[in-house]
């Protein structure tokens, strides 16, 4: 599987792995406690504090590691939620057609007519922003995009002769969706997933930056930018580290997605 791994995929895979491992093992590798004040305000980088300290003297590397944990955790779960609901409903709408398709598609059109950030602001002003509610909110808002893609792909596939052959055999909906359509729709969905994951990272960061996402003292990348943005006026780069982290994560995840895409597009089971 890892033989003939292209360079781009190797780079993407290793960076993604570093970010995810750091997220999983945050308590082990972080040098200090997440909320501990361990130094002066906005100390420059030193042997004790590799990235310096933040606006109240917490270790910035520790904050970044814990922040990454929150951001990646929320983005991953929200992506999974949006893909399962979006693609299952999309496939179902494509295969069954009729009123179900109409009702679902018009509802999704309606949801998409409202900018998702504004919708999220409105909803979050009325409910409490916990990690769970954020995941559900982001996942469901994003599922509308996935639904449209999945439905469009599946509509094309569901008119193929092999789907008709399965229907004539008497197959149930489950087989048709998961065994006939899903494997053939996987490539565009995987490509979309790489992009969607990054949009999720940006979305949660945006919400936190605006102060309605992840709540302190929990750290997340958007929150770190918000806390340290005043530092930029004094030439302190603390707010830029999350930006670099988001950019490198975005690129490396998409390199991996591209590579998976290449492998799954092969019609010889990826062994040719």
């Amino acid at each position, binding site marked *: 599987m890892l033989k003939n791994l292209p360079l781009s995929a190797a780079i993407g895979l290793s960076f993604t792995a570093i970010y995810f491992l750091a997220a999983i093992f945050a308590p082990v590798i972080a040098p200090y406690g997440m909320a501990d004040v361990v130094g002066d305000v906005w100390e420059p980088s030193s042997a004790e504090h590799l990235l310096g300290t933040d606006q109240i003297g917490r270790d910035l590397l520790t904050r970044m590691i814990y922040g990454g944990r929150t951001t990646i955790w929320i983005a991953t779960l929200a992506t999974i939620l949006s893909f399962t609901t979006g693609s299952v409903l999309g496939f179902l709408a494509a295969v069954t057609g009729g009123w179900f398709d109409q009702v679902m598609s018009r509802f999704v059109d309606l949801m998409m007519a409202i900018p998702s950030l504004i919708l999220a602001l409105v909803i979050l002003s009325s409910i409490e922003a916990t990690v769970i509610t954020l995941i559900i909110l982001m996942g469901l808002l994003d599922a509308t995009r996935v639904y449209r893609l999945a439905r469009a792909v599946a509509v094309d596939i569901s008119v193929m002769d092999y789907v008709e052959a399965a229907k004539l055999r008497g197959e149930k909906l489950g087989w048709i969706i998961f065994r006939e359509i899903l494997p053939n729709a996987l490539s565009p969905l995987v490509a979309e997933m790489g992009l969607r994951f990054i949009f999720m990272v940006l979305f949660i960061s945006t919400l936190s930056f605006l102060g309605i996402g992840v709540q302190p003292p929990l750290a997340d990348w958007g929150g770190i930018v918000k806390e340290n943005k005043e530092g930029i006026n004094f030439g302190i780069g603390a707010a830029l580290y999350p930006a670099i982290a988001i950019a490198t994560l975005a690129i490396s995840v998409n390199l991996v997605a591209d590579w998976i895409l290449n492998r799954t597009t092969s019609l*010889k089971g990826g062994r040719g």
Partner: protein
Amino acid sequence: MSEQPLLKVRGLKIGATVYPPGEKPHNIKIVHGVDFDLQPGKVLGLIGESGAGKSTIGLASMAYGRGGVELTGGEVWVNGRDILQASLGDIRKLRGGEVTYVSQSAAASFNPAKQIMEQVTEAAIRQGKFAKKEAELRAVELFRKLGLPDPENIGKRYPHQVSGGQLQRCMTALALCPQPDLVVFDEPTTALDVTTQIDVLAAIKEAIRDTGVAALYITHDLAVVAQVSDHIMVLRHGNMVEYGDTDQIINAPKEEYTQALVSVRSITHEEKAPTDSPLLRAENITARYKGTNFDVLHDVSMDLSPGQTLAVVGESGSGKSTMARVITGLLPPRDGKLTFDGRTLTPDQPSRSIEDLRELQMIYQMADVAMNPRQTVGTIIGRPLEFYFGLKGAEKRQRTIALLDEIELGEEFIDRYPAELSGGQKQRVCIARALAAKPKLIICDEVTSALDPLVADGILKLLLRLQAAEDVAYIFITHDLATVKAIADSIAVMYQGRVVRYGPKSEVLSPPFDDYTDLLLSSVPEMRLGWLEHVLATRKMESAGN
């Protein structure tokens, strides 16, 4: 030969770079050194199966390689100069001026947004051969020669306003308009109905004779090429197999491969008499598609006895595939009744019992899209075994291998994906999938029409053998009468949604004929010289495509 040949090809080698997924790109050879001459005013037929390199050679005579194809060696001389060495400017003068091209699908080649006349005269005007007025006069003259209706005004129409056969003739006019020395015909009649093909063929032949142009005629159908060409070159895998004049190739082929091509469709099948209790009886079926207001089937009735073959014949649009959809329950009829094995079939497929579904299987025209590209052969054939009979594990695998044996493929195919099979192998796997359900009836929808003649022959032989072994009945939907003659027990001829002739094979195929059956029968190209002229002189009815 006193005259200098118009087209002289020496040692032509053509290659391409392929990019298989997951592999390093590498070069393959498509044509391995081909030589031939073509004298002015003569027609050379290039014939071979798909992948033989015939279209590639045709395009090479315009110094063109399609989609990454490279002309890697040899010489192509047109009018005394080697065009492979010519400058781009010279080649531009050549294409559309000295050499023109007629493609297989006129519908895909015409610009739908422009009038026909503009497109037909474009090359002639741009090459500076004629002024606009003259070119249009010439086009009208060509339209008349090609037998198009209303030649003065047909140029004002748009491509979608004429029929497929007419558009193909317009394309021939387009190619002839700049007064070229050579026209390359690339399967010009393959996409047409058999009754339309004959008119286009006759028009092309006459136009070639009248204008004195030389032509390369590319096709996979030996019977067609025999009607138009002076010489024939048989190609296989990029090599020349045999070259000779038409008479010799048709009547005294030297090479084994050519002999196989000539004798293709020589399958004979003893007609069985219908039994008293039919397996399938369709009574007075009338059907229309959702959202339309006209019937595509009118009052269609037919019977099929167990273990026999009913051929449903007709042109495209005759309703024969719709009939298959009605029988399978995909299109519930508006009126009429289906009886299968003594019980009434419910009109819509979802309400049918598993037994009904199992006993009535279907094989599709395009094996490519009839199999899920992400499932292995083992899954494709094994699924019906699991679904209908609950077979699992070793038992399922054993039965799958037995089925693979029956379709003359080995055990090693079980883990392959459809993309790793040839066209004929794919169709065989589809047959095995249908057979796995142990059906009493298989509907075969144009199962051989996408295949090369020799491969199609193999499939037909297989189907006949399986019928004898498994006692399964076939409904064979086809437009190809040669196939019908080979395998049918009874025949239903359909025309515009009605059965115009129905009965045992021997009755349907013997006179007296109704006009439509006569037209259909006489339009099937026969492999003998002078067939085309004979048919045109004797037939009673104009084809619908006119």
